[in-house]
């Protein structure tokens, strides 16, 4: 089937089976590989994208349900919060293997867009769905606070 949706501000048409997860459509049909496959059951957050600004697990979104949807992936992450997050991530050398970080960054960006000055509890609540097997969590937490400061300044 053919589905037209907006990805990173551009109208894109996907020709694939309607049950194809957005994750695989992005990666295999559009060659946008920044969105990662981690678990396929919405347990790890590596495949996080924004759907109308809400962090969503692209492994669970079937393209047949996405006609007209507005999707942002790591490749299209921009704006004040995303830029502050990416800058803070780079400043603190957050990533190790880096595989989960697209999802972490999109989760953190959504958090800061909603809650510009998050507490540690806010961070726990917003980020607990995103697994990092390298356990870079201490730096992710710190980087979110740094990004919040950057947005303020």
């Amino acid at each position: 089937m053919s589905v037209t949706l907006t990805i990173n501000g551009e109208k894109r048409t996907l020709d694939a089976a309607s049950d194809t997860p957005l994750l695989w459509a992005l990666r295999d049909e559009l060659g946008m590989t920044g969105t990662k496959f981690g678990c396929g059951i919405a347990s790890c957050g590596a495949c996080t994208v924004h759907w109308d600004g809400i962090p969503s697990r692209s492994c669970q979104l079937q393209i047949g349900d996405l006609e007209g949807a507005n999707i942002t992936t790591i490749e299209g992450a921009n704006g004040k919060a995303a830029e502050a997050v990416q800058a803070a991530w780079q400043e603190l050398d957050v990533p190790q293997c880096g595989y989960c970080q697209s999802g972490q960054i999109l989760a953190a960006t959504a958090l800061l867009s909603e809650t510009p000055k998050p507490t540690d509890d806010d961070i726990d609540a917003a980020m607990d769905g995103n697994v990092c097997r390298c356990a870079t969590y201490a730096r992710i937490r710190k980087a979110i606070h740094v990004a919040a400061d950057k947005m303020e300044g």
Partner: protein
Amino acid sequence: MLHQLQKPLEQAKPSRRTFLKMSAGAVGGLILAAKLPNTAKAAAGSGEFAQPFVHIRPDNTVAVLSKHLDKGQGTANGLATLVADELDASHEQIVLELAPSNPQLYANSLFGVQGTGGSTAMPNAFMQYRQAGAAAKAMIVSAAAKEWGVPAGEITVSSGVVSHPSGKTATLGELAGLAAQEEVPADPALKTPDQWVYIGKSFPRKDVKNKTVGAPDTYTIDFKRDGMLTATVARSPRFGGTVKSFDASEAEKVPGVVEIFQIPSGVAVVAESTWPAIKARDLLEIEWDDSAAETRSSDAMMSELKDMTTKPGLTVREDGDVDAALEASANVMKIDYDFPFLAHGAMEPLDIVAEFDGEKAEFWFASQIQTLDHNVAATILGIPFENVQINTLWSGGSFGRRAQQDSHPVSEVSFLMKAMRDAGMEKRPIKIVWTREDDMTGGYYRPMSAHKIKVGLDDDGNVTAVKYNIAAKSIIKGSAFEPMLMADGVDHNMTEGASDTTYSFPVMNMEQAFQETPVPVLWWRSVGHTHTAYVMETMMDRIAKETGKDPVALRLELLKDDPRKTNVLKLAAEKAGWDTPLPEGRHRGVAVHKSFGSYVAEVAEISFREDGTVKVEKVTAAVDCGIPVNPDNIRAQVEGGIGYGLGAILRNQVTLTDGYVEETNFDTYESLRMSDMPEIEVHIVPSTESPTGIGEPGTPPIGPAVANAIAAARDEWITSLPFTKAGLV
């Protein structure tokens, strides 16, 4: 991980030869900045300086080629730090690249083959990469001297700029082509530590930017070749099972499926893209032959292991008559421990890309032991070693999982490519993708193990004897590494961290027994130390409790002959305020352990939630890994190592029911998450000792430190892992 190779290399030459023969093409040895014979001329013409470890390009980038796989531990950046310092390059111009398989150029000098593990990257490459940087600098300076007609001694290099007092300046890139024509100095002068500009200071990771913008072609799963097909493989759900028969009629109907093959490891679904390959695989009807498969449950396997620890085993360490010493003791403490199978759970499941035209084969993946992988490919495809090219890609984690001794991903894709060729399919590159379930249920686990300890004490509370029996499946026995690593018949990987303890016990004997099972086992971040550190360090706290001593004081008393361990223990205790009272509801525990040549002490501070579960609030760590090449990366690795170990001891186990794996994904094998992560402080001991690794050593102490804190609070000793079994999570 593979660090035990070092000793056999020195002590058992015949084993080494056997090993190298198996790894045809490997010559081992330390290659410094030797000229690449076939590329030197070409490089001169291209304006590029191309040596094995350093490429200086006309665009003024300096690529440092890491002979080691970077799976997140920061090795590529660490080795680049060494080159940049000796070459006096700028941080901006450095580019990190991973070297392809080439045992002549890129062998791990501690293994004799190209491979990464055992936290050996920095110790084996520290001098080599500094020399490579220094040689490149000498050649640049020599080229500038000729070009400018000035004495080489008057030329300086700083932050990538070559200059002469006359005002002449050039970039490294501008001089690269000329420098390529210079002789490679055999013994270039190295900087003295006071001249270092990056080593021991700061060299932020050059791979971070790519990893924050979703850059393409970073990981194997992202890698694509024109016309590439994607495959999934249905492998036996029981370890050791094989395909008896299968029906692919439903699977074949899925649009996008190209062909379905039986291969030795199972049934492969080859499709135009990933989703059809996943979907169609679920529709395969396969009957498995389980006649050689493991059909036991893990409980039964653990009973067998426990039974094995009650019987005499293979002697690993024998100081004297331990039974007599225990008999003569006033008091004997008896403790049994058991540890489960653990999956590595790297974020990127296994994957590999390959193509084969009948004569030559090329692979793209995160190969961790390239030389083994290279050999297996050549053998299965029936082509010469030199007709195989392995390109090393960045890895989304590994924790040991990609260091398979049997090279099973290479083996599987090679058999599939042969099958495709035999079926007359046109030559197309193929990618095999593992789902999380494939990865989690696919074995190669940290072995499950049982431990039986007896500690003798005299009337004054002094330790008189320690007897330690351990049983597990050997990671090494029967593997490609057996000739090297078990030259004396003993699997040291299983007992490391206990048999080599520096606690001065009057008598300590240790015996091991090997379980036989088709469940494949493998090195898991810190290997034997994952269980021995837990046993030894909780044992120390039990002795302290039994004898009324302070846990830190008892350790210091028994570590008189180990000044470096003593130092980290004192430093962690001091920074954690060991002797100061804790706030209400907080409890402390300590552990200190040496692994892979590095010393780490950790003090864990815990509290209990209202439901009685444990929360690790803070960990104060002290580490001595010799010269701290990149202090921030050392901190990062200790932070991550603590988190990795903590997640495992809290709630990770792989269990089998009638041979079938119960934990199939992150919903049942629950990872550490943000809300579990303690605050972590890492203190680095200044050192002039040779650098040792840091990828693994942060992991072993965290389990016992937390267990000891729980015991300090409740007098409850956890001896069966994970903590979920004790209702603490």
